[in-house]
């Protein structure tokens, strides 16, 4: 199925929760945050939230800035 992650269309397996989504893209789980359809998903809920077709997901980390 297709989802929009960080502004890009990505093909991912169906039924992934957010923990699994991070692993799918080999992303670290610390000091990041996930937003799904414009709402932040709390870290404690990652395991319970399943990604659906056409979801809009933002995964952020931190970079240098002023």
């Amino acid at each position: 199925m297709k989802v929009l992650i960080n502004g890009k269309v990505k093909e991912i397996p169906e039924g992934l929760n957010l923990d699994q989504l991070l692993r799918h893209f080999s992303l670290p789980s610390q000091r990041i945050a996930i937003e799904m359809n414009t709402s932040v998903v709390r870290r404690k809920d990652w395991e319970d939230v399943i990604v659906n077709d056409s979801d809009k997901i933002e995964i952020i980390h931190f970079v240098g800035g002023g």
Partner: protein
Amino acid sequence: MSDTFILAGKAFGSRLIIGTGKYRSFQEMQSAHLASGAEMVTVAVNRVPLDKKTESFLDYLAPEMQILPNTAGCYDAEHAVRTARLAREALETDWIKLEVIGDPVTLLPDNEQTLEAAKVLVKEGFVVLPYFSDDLIMAKKLLDAGCPAVMPLAAPIGSGLGVQNPANLKIMREQLPDAVIIVDAGVGVPSDAAIAMELGADAILMNTAIAEAKNAEQMAKAMNLAVQAGRLAYLSGRMPKRLYASASSPIQGAISNIPK
């Protein structure tokens, strides 16, 4: 003399807050941070690259450093609020440097959107530190909205032009004697930082002036000293300006005659 900087109930020994952007290497950033004496640094929220492995940037920050995430790159209140919420979730901090930009060429703030975002974030329990134009009335509105400090610009972000409207900062200081005023953006050289502090700013936030210096570590030290010098000067109270000279040595008793 103790002159602790208190911001939102937290005490800081340094009145210099610095950024983490534009450094040529993480090592250079670390040495500049150390030399600056800063106890708080800003970081930016950004999308994680999905296709390449990235180094954990936060590992290069000293553990005792307070991290202040920003909402840089946001052009409306809605995106700034979303960015702040993401930052809070990732870093477990309520502190946010609120930055809502009005246009990409000048990077000048959109004060209206900034105020709107500030109101939402304060209600959600954030410690909102807003970057905005050096405008007294907007400062009042942001403080009324519950911001614990206001952060007027000295000049556009990354311009290094120094304090463009000293009168505005002076008026803000005089009219808001109890407010915490942090001059954010536009400082180019230590004298700019000293001027802002002499005008009564409580602290300075800067990034480019240090990161783009040929020797960032040395410039960080110079800024550290300038902020301290400006603060001491402000507390000391400057002499009055006069149009005409005022002799420092006694005229009476000099062996020369005053020319007619």
